[in-house]
């Protein structure tokens, strides 16, 4: 009986996805769809939360009060976005503590870009402009994802992120047009963040483990390579406006294709960083664990207090 029901439910599910209807939490969904979503969404949530660290690295050193306020608000937003995404992922029947445990035991991944260090102030500009820029290209496509809570979280996040990229570009623009030292910092930041930003779109479509299924289920709406090219095409003219040198000597306008040609990503580095050998992988997880452990007694106190209050209430009723 169960089998027949599942087969029926599968047909209904496929029809919904085909019709561009959203799948909602209480709907039947194939196990693999659920698993795939949990993987992608929790990874997305972790990325937001771990992403607080490289930018947080400069909050106490921001060179003006205005920049400091902007950066703090932005890093806080990333935390908020992590929250929206954890919240949306919880609708799939996993708890936030389970997700965090997966992060801390390195079973769950987060965007590799955050395993690169922020070494000078222009890096904060590069992160906003390039990293958030790449994320936005990705997230705009995800607003149409088939899972309702994910799609709604993406819409909310995209709305808030528009200031993130602009503040980053404004920051790096000020430096690119500033003193020779500032310009050098800006160039250095661009050179270091360019390739990791391109890597954010994931492996080539032909090498992407989860892509095909995710496309079929409309969890992902456009392929890694399409999105990456879109990012390159929109970013190259922005580099020109800054008056900085191209971080990739092979970048060249291709009239025929109507897009920019560019060099090949160092995929060995890509896999190294994914597999835990980026400059900051250890640091990021240790930071997260430390904050979590330092907060343990606070959460214990909260629980103990709540229990005492309940006991009091119960005693009063009796």
């Amino acid at each position, binding site marked *: 009986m169960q089998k027949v029901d599942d087969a029926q439910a599968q047909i209904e599910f496929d029809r919904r996805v085909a019709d561009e209807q959203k799948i909602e939490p209480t709907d039947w969904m194939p196990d693999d769809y659920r698993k795939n979503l949990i993987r992608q969404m929790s990874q997305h949530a972790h990325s937001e939360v771990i992403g607080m660290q490289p930018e947080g690295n400069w909050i106490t050193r921001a060179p003006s009060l205005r920049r400091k306020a902007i950066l703090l608000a932005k890093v806080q937003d990333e935390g*908020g976005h992590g929250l*929206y995404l954890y919240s949306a992922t919880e609708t799939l029947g996993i708890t936030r*503590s389970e997700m965090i445990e997966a992060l*801390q*035991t390195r079973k769950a991944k987060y965007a590799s870009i955050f395993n690169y260090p922020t070494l000078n102030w222009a890096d904060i500009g590069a992160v906003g402009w390039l990293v958030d820029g790449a994320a936005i290209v990705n997230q705009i496509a995800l607003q149409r994802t088939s899972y309702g809570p994910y799609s709604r*979280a993406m819409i909310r996040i995209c709305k808030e992120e528009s200031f993130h990229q602009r503040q980053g570009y404004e920051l790096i623009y000020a430096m690119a047009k500033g003193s020779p030292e500032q310009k050098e910092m800006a160039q250095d930041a661009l050179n270091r963040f360019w390739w990791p930003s391109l890597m954010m779109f994931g492996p080539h479509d032909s090498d992407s483990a989860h892509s095909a299924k995710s496309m079929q289920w409309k969890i992902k709406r456009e392929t890694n390579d399409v999105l990456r090219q879109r990012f390159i095409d929109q970013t190259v003219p922005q580099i020109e406006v800054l008056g900085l040198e191209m971080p990739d000597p092979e970048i060249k306008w291709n009239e025929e294709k109507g897009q920019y040609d560019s060099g090949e990503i160092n995929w060995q580095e890509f896999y190294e960083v994914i597999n835990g050998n980026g400059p900051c992988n250890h640091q990021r997880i*240790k930071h997260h664990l430390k904050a979590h452990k330092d907060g*343990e007694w606070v959460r*214990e106190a909260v629980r103990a207090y*709540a229990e005492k209050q309940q006991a009091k209430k119960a005693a009063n009723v009796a």
Partner: protein
Amino acid sequence: MNQEQVVNQEYLAVYEVFIRSARGLDHKHVGSLHAESPEHALMYARDCYLRRSEGVSVWVVKATDITASQESDLENFVDPMDDKDYRHATHYVLPDSVTNM
């Protein structure tokens, strides 16, 4: 995993958050958060969901206090409402000369 032990997370309850974005509109579900009490949930909702003054009123509801219809019951739950088209204005055909009704 290194020796560092993973600390298990929350003793906090999940609260669903609803926001009225402007006077005259309905409260709309925007997401959830974890908090130790309804009062705290309300404050966290302000910090987490209203950073840009997105609302004029907030409700928080403990997620476990929500009773929801089940997808599997949908047939019994919604379908019986389907055949009562006399509840809709378009069901009634009036003479053309009667406008504005």
